């Protein structure tokens, strides 16, 4: 539990966390307001599939993960605690847990806000829609959080995180087999868009859950075994 203190504090106290959270939240809310102002009959669907799922959620979670890791790789982000005597696996587990939980929470809150603000006459009843959006937002946020945390276990400064953002961006927009491994395609499917390989909503739900667990586990394994190379002098 004490090992979760540092990544949590990084999220609460650093500008690196607050700037992307406020920025991408404002972007998603603006998308919802525009949908509402335009009188879209399915405003929530439009705003969620558009500004929220396409741009705001992945970039917001990318920023949250970067902030939780202090802008470093997953292994190096825990170096200070390891120097104080903590187990590398324990530190990696706590960091991944905080990143995924924060991403899920923020994803859910933002999805609910967007759905409520952009709700149109032909959207499902508000209460049910908001509950469903909270579920999808939380799962999507968690999957992205785990996905980017795994990315941060590659590269000296966690460069893999940026690489996976691009992979999600380029492969997730399609409907083929390459999209199956990206959170973007499954979140789109759950929000009413086209599913990859015509998977059912339930399959996409399972795929996102699996993605969150597998990526988290791999990230912990990689960071727990990682060396922390000496700087060249």
């Amino acid at each position, binding site marked *: 539990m004490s090992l979760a*203190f540092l990544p949590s504090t990084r999220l609460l106290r650093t500008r690196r966390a607050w700037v992307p959270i406020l920025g991408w939240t404002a972007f998603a809310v603006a998308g919802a307001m525009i949908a509402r102002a335009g009188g879209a009959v399915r405003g929530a669907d439009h705003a969620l599939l558009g500004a929220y799922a396409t741009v705001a959620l992945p970039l917001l979670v990318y920023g949250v993960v970067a902030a939780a890791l202090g802008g470093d790789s997953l292994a190096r982000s825990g170096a200070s605690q390891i*120097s*104080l*005597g903590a*187990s590398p696996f324990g530190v990696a587990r706590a960091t991944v847990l905080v990143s995924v939980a924060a991403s899920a929470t923020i994803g859910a809150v933002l999805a609910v806000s967007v759905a409520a603000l952009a709700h149109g006459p032909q959207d499902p009843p508000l209460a049910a829609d908001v509950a469903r959006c909270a579920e999808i937002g939380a799962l999507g946020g968690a999957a992205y959080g785990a996905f980017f945390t795994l990315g941060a276990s590659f590269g000296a400064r966690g460069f893999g995180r940026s690489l996976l953002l691009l992979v999600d961006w380029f492969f997730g927009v399609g409907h083929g087999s390459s999209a199956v491994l990206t959170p973007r395609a499954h979140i789109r499917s759950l929000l009413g868009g086209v599913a990859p390989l015509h998977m059912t909503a339930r399959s996409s739900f399972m795929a996102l859950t699996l993605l969150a667990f597998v990526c988290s586990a791999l990230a912990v394994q990689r960071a727990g075994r990682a060396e922390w*190379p*000496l*700087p060249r002098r």
Partner: protein
Amino acid sequence: MIQADGLTARSAPVALAPLSFELGAGVHALVGTYVDGVPLVLAALAGRVRLRKGSLRLLGKPLTEVRASVAYVPLDLALPDALTVNETFALAAEIRGEPRAEAAPRLAALGIASLGPRRVRSLTRAEARAVAMAEALTSSARVILLEEPYMTLDPRAAAVLAVRLRERAKDGACVVIGTASVRDAIDLADDQLVFDRGVLVRTMATGASTATPGAGLVRLSAGVSDIGPVLPELAKEATITAIESDHACIVVSGLDARELAAAVGRAVLRAGVDLEWLRADAPRLEELRAGGGGNAAAAYQAAMQQRARSVPPPGAP
């Protein structure tokens, strides 16, 4: 406390040849530069880099079982960036399973109590290293690994570091310092393990006579409050073969460093003047690696010991 058997590790461009040693309670110095692999040995002992071969036991157990009893302060140290210094100490106490205690007295041990409320991010590098050393030296850790302890260290901490290291060693801790400074290694440690390009080439003990008979003259420099009365007293000492002086200091030469230092002490006492300083040049790292430097090391140690007996510590009445 530390048992390394055939230990090898690698962190490009440095690699360690199979290394075996045992270190018990006390202060031990690993002497050598980055390319000699000294930081790499410390990193391997701390579990920062993987062992390629061999075995390592700390406190009789594998590192993974005693990690909380190991404190490691590398040169490129990282402190928890988003926390304050007080929070860092609280976090460290939880990790090590210690009862939570105020950070101020622990920081005061190295003279930096005022840093407690500061954010770690706001500390200078020298302050951050002092904080990390204060944590390491006042924790329950029984194996303490310090890389270049005096480098980029807050002067308040540097002034008392040697005393704190000795105290921890006396408490039964195994303190290992890695340094390229022969002077620091002799000043701080009970023994020195000398490295050359990843190979442990020599082990020396501070205080043991390492002088080689017939290896040549050793020279000691001394500063006294009044040179005039001392010169005739020095001339009476048989072990001194040559005396040089100017208005600032006296340089004496002889064959035995310990005898020379003692002779200076006796002459100063008889002359009734104050010995302000006494020093010898520490041997160079290359000399130690080559198996020489014994006379210089002995001279340096003798000067330090004589000075400790004759010169009151700073701040003493």
